[in-house]
C-alpha cells in the first residue's frame, strides 16, 4: 500500500537534475558529501514512512 514509487514522478526531470548538479558546483568533495547527507535526511523526513524508506534503502543498495 505504502510502496515506494519507482515510476517516473518528477515532471521536469532535466530541470531537477540540472539543479542537483548545480547545487554541488564549487563545493569541495567534503562539502559535497555533507550536502548530500543533509539532502538525504531532509528528503527521508519528508517521506517519513518507515517501510518506504526501507524499500528506498534496498533500491540504493541495488538489491533485488
Amino acid at each position: 500500500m505504502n510502496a515506494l514509487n519507482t515510476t517516473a514522478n518528477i515532471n521536469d526531470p532535466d530541470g531537477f537534475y540540472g539543479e542537483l548538479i548545480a547545487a554541488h558546483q564549487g563545493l569541495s568533495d567534503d562539502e559535497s558529501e555533507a550536502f548530500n547527507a543533509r539532502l538525504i535526511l531532509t528528503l527521508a523526513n519528508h517521506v517519513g514512512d518507515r517501510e518506504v524508506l526501507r524499500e528506498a534503502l534496498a533500491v540504493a543498495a541495488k538489491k533485488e
Partner: protein
Amino acid sequence: MLDDRYTLAFKLYPYAKVADQDRDAPVRHPVVVMGGGPIGMATALDLGLQGIPVLVLDDHEGIGMGSRAICFSKRCLEVADRYGCGEAMLDKGVVWNVGKVFHDDRQVFEFNLLPEKGHKFPAFINLQQPYFERFIIDRIWQAQKEGAPIEIRGKNRVDAVEEHGRYVTLDVMTPDGPYKVEADWLIGCDGAGSPLRKMLGQEFEGRVFEDNFLIADIKMQADFPVERWFWFDPYFKSGDSALLHSQPDGVWRIDFQLGWDIDRKEELKQENIDRRLKQMLGDDVEYEMVWSSIYTFQCRRMREFRHGRVIFAGDAAHQVSPFGARGANSGMQDVDNLGWKLGLVIEGKAPESLLDTYHEERSFGADENILNSTRATDFITPKTKMSRIFRDAVLDLSEDHAFARPFVNSGRLSVPCTYDGLSLNGPDELPGGPARSRVGSACPDAPLGGDYLLGKLGGSFTILTIDADAPESVEVDGITATRLALSASDDATGALAERYLGDAESAVYLIRPDQHVAARWSTCDETALRAALRHACGKD
C-alpha cells in the same frame, strides 16, 4: 595477596574471621552472592527480606570510590523503595528534568522529562554511586536487626568455583588464608570484569568502542542550572564532546571525549585535566577535584544468564556504555526479577525452570539497553567517515529545522523494560485498557489520596481490582495472591483511571511480586485468575 584493587569511599564491613573458616567440612549456604556492589547488595536485601538466608562475599571491605553511576531512574528508585531505601536516595539526590544539547556554541536540541504528576519518584535523580550503595547497605543493617538473615563477609575473595550439579563449592581467600564454602545457589554479581564468568569459561560478547572518555568530578560554586548539558564539538575544545551534570554536595560531573589514540598517563596528569577544565569553565572558576579517571566503553552480554545453579546479574551479565544511564538501573531490574523467582524455587513452590524466565526476561531487557546504548555511542563516536558525515549533517540541520532534532542522540535515557510477548505473560483481556499497563509492563505509579499505588504492590502477588469484584485471595501450591480493592474514585486526580482503566469501566490485574503485570481482564473469572497465577510462576 588480598590487596585492595580500588580506594574505598566508605569502609563498612571490615574483615572478621568467622567459624566457617575453621570447620573441617565446608558449610553449605542456601544462597551465596559473589560481589558486594550495588547489584549484589540489592540481591541480598531482596532475598533477606523474604527470609531466605543469604551470604555476600566481597573482596573489599566497603564501597568503592570513583566516578561511576550518577543518574538513577524512576524504575530503579521504585525497586529500591520496595526494599525500603528509595526515599533516602530521593532525599539526598538532585532531581533534574531538562537536557540541552549543543553543537559548537549553538543549542541544537532540548528535552524535558516533563514529570507526569502522581508518581512518588521523579523520572531521574542524580546521586553519586557510593551514596546509592550506602543507602542499600544501611537498609541491610536495619533489616538484619529486624531479623533478615543476611550476612556480609568483607575481604572474602572468591578464587575458584566447582560445580556439582545441585550445589557449588567456592574457594575463598581471606587475610587468614583460604577456606571453602558451599552454596545451593551462587549469584554472580562480581561486575563487568567478572572473575566468575571466566571461571566458568563463559564468553562476554559484544563491541568495544574505540574511544576514551575522561571523567572529572569536581566541586565548585557555579550557577549552572541543574540540567544535563552535552556538547558535540564544543567551542571550548576540551574534547570531541563534553558533558556537564550536577550531583549532590556541589559536585559536578564533567566528561570529555578524548579519542582513541591517547596517552592515558599523560591525560590523567592534573595539569592536563586542569587545562581542559579551564578551557571549558574559564580561568577564574575555582574548583576542587573529587575524582578523575579515563574510561573506554563497551556494549556486551553473556549468552546465558543462568548456568545451572549459577546465575549472573548486573554488570557481570551485561555491560553498556553510560550514555543513557542503563547500567545500574538495569541491574536493579535484574534483582527485582530474580529475587521472587529464586525465593519461590528455594521454598519449593515453583519449578527450577522458573529461573530460565529470569534469563528470558532480563536478556530481553539487556538487548534493549545494548541497542539503545550502541546507537547513542555510534552517534557520539561515529565509526566511519560516512557515519561522521551523517552525524554532522544532523547537527547542522537541527539548528534550524525541528525535523532533524529527534535524530540527535546523546543518550536515550533508561526507561523500564516491558516484557512484551514473553513466556510468563498471561491473558491481556481488558478491551480499552491503556497500553502503558499492558501485560508485561512495570506498573505505573498512581496517587491514592496522600499515598501511592506502588507502595501497596510488590513482594508477593496482588489481585488489583478497580471497580470489580474478586476473591479476597487465591492460592496455588502455597503461593498466595491477595486482593487490593480500589475504585476509580479513590484517586480524585483521575490518574489511576487513566493509567489502569483507559476506556474500560472496570479492571482486574494480576500483578507479580516485581510489580509487573502478569495478566488483566475487565472482570474476574476465578478459574482464569488461578490459571494465570500458575502460569506466572512457571507451572505449565
